[in-house]
């Protein structure tokens, strides 16, 4: 539960051996590919084509796709571990977007070739889609398709919009990751493929739920990395004649960060275990809310421990803290999801709260 080890082999949600091996491979791959130069180039706007190719060659983007559809067929908890490792290493590429969008589309019976798939947050009407831009779509400019969720008189469905059916205004988040504004051409929807979305979550959040789910996993990985960097720095940096790790103030700050990180990880794991169950929307809300809240605290404490050194481009810390600041506001910030949770809980009343939490955890097979 002390999420500080860099090894993926630590005890976590029960995982079969295959998943554990895959996570270890992922770790080695990312350690090799996500170099300082790769991160620097991505910051400057260059897509890390080699790293992304290695990720695809390893089939990581197919993790959640069923075996009969040519995927790896991992359970969501194991796939979530891969996303946490991607967060830990700061992979500057849309693995989480492609992994979940691809899995949803194929599970809905769609077909798909190679080429990056990303997803737009929200649940749209066909009419809105034709007139309003889709804001903050990750890597939309270089994607081959954008997955969009639609709900109107024609029912809930997924739409896969190909790249030549939309135009893009480029925009970057705080971590310099592309978050483009997408405008579908007048005749663009005609080029798109559509599938009924039987497994859609309840409510009006649409794909925001799935985006929140993957961002929660990534945030957990980034928090673990921040914590691990801060611990190493505290043991190394000397002031007043001793390592700052010896100062109680530093110790207690890091204990608080470890608590936040552990709570965030627990919430993210709950959501992964609830994937595909009726509890998923609620669980994803809990995960994004809890991780979003923890992200700000862990980033703040990590910077405080690193002092001025962590405030420089030269030190790697900002790769992870800037992602935490960006990700907590994407696919619904913590306040958004807290409000959703609060509305559900209040509508059901006080006596229903405990049974709901028990059911949530049961979906997570922990009890």
């Amino acid at each position, binding site marked *: 539960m002390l999420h500080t080890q860099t090894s993926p082999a630590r005890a976590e949600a029960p995982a079969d051996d295959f998943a554990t091996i895959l996570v270890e491979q992922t770790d080695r791959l990312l350690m090799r590919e996500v170099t300082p130069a790769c991160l620097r180039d991505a910051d400057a706007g260059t897509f890390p084509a080699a790293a992304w190719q290695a990720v695809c060659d390893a089939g990581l983007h197919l993790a959640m796709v069923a075996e009969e559809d040519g995927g790896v067929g991992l359970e969501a908890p194991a796939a979530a571990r891969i996303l946490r490792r991607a967060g830990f290493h700061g992979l500057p590429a849309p693995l989480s977007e492609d992994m979940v969008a691809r899995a949803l589309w194929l599970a809905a019976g769609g077909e798909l070739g190679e080429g990056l798939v990303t997803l737009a947050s929200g649940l749209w009407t066909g009419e809105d889609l034709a007139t309003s831009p889709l804001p903050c779509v990750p890597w939309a400019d270089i994607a081959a398709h954008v997955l969009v969720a639609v709900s109107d008189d024609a029912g809930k469905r997924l739409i896969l919009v190909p790249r030549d059916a939309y135009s893009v205004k480029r925009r970057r988040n705080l971590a310099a990751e592309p978050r483009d504004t997408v405008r579908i051409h007048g005749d663009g929807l005609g080029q798109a493929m559509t599938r009924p979305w039987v497994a859609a979550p309840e409510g009006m959040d649409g794909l925001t739920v799935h985006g929140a789910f993957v961002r929660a996993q990534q945030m957990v990985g980034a928090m673990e990395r921040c914590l691990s960097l801060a611990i190493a720095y505290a043991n190394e940096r000397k002031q007043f004649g001793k390592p700052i790790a010896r100062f109680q103030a530093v110790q207690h700050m890091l204990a608080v960060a470890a608590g936040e990180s552990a709570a965030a990880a627990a*919430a993210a794991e*709950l959501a992964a275990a609830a994937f595909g169950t009726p509890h998923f929307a609620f669980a994803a809300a809990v995960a994004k809310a809890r991780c979003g809240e923890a992200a700000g605290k862990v980033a703040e404490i990590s910077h405080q421990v690193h002092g001025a050194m962590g405030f420089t481009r030269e030190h790697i810390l900002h790769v992870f803290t800037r992602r935490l600041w960006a990700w907590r506001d994407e696919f619904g910030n913590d306040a958004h999801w807290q409000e959703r949770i609060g509305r559900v809980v209040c509508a059901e009343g006080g006596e229903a709260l405990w049974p709901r939490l028990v059911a949530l955890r049961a979906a997570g097979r922990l009890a």
Partner: protein
Amino acid sequence: MGLTLPKVYGGHERSSLERFVVTEEMLAAGAPCGAHWIADRQSAPQILRHGTEEAKALVIPRICAGTCYFGIGMSEPDSGSDLAAVRTKAVRTDGGWLLNGQKIWTTNGHRVHYLLALVRTGDAGDDRHGGLTQFLIDLEAPGIEIRPILDIAGHHEFNEVFFTDHFVPDRFVIGDVGNGWDMVTQELAFERSGPDRFMSDYRLLAALVDRIGADPGPREAVETGRLVSHLAALTAMSGSVAGMLGAGQIPNVEAALVKDVGTAFERDIPEVARRLIPIEPSLDATDDPYGEALADVMLRAPSFTLRGGTREILRSMIARGLGLR
């Protein structure tokens, strides 16, 4: 009661995860954790692991039957966070030990039958952790005086316990002489990770939800939702520590982490509640159960971050667990 204890002593031999779930349900339902609580949670497992056959035969069946209550004999006036500073002393005598000294903050000391007490039986040694031994103390035996301590709400829950040439027979020594420190450390893992460390004011949260009503404003929804997201994460964390305990591990650091995060959550609930539903809590608002619950929690809250190890002690433990050196 006795859920995890062996059938041979009248227990049910269920897993500690099952005990964990039952505990949660009791707390969620607002059932009082009575005087038998400590015995069931931490004293019985200790005696089972480390006690003599006589000690086990004497107390475990009665713990399973719910007729035997325990108190914790760790703290002393000059040894609160610094357990190694224990000064209550036992000297060897015929067939046992003679105890002199004082324990403090003994929960329900006036109603329990036994203490598990940490007592100095030798030199502390270089690491300050040596020379301590755990004893089973029969509070009805001679040489014991119990004095009440009133808490800030005026309730009598805590006590001082004084020992004057109190005789403890050898069969009441728990574990090896001089090995008390390690055992207490294990015991605290049981004490710290349970749902009673983050659900003691759960009922106030449930009452707050009802008081807000089915159609909350954005402020009420956001604040309530935040608390629920914390609680969901805590139940998962605590459950995973229960699993580790059940597997025979001693997850001290993890337990400290659950308690530190858990007590912060417990302290948050009344603070959020009072800002969302503006009432003036009263000591005698008998016409308003919600106000009474809030007042009760408000006056108990300072103890949340003290009992079972202060926040500061826990954070230092966590820091060591993180590898800070």
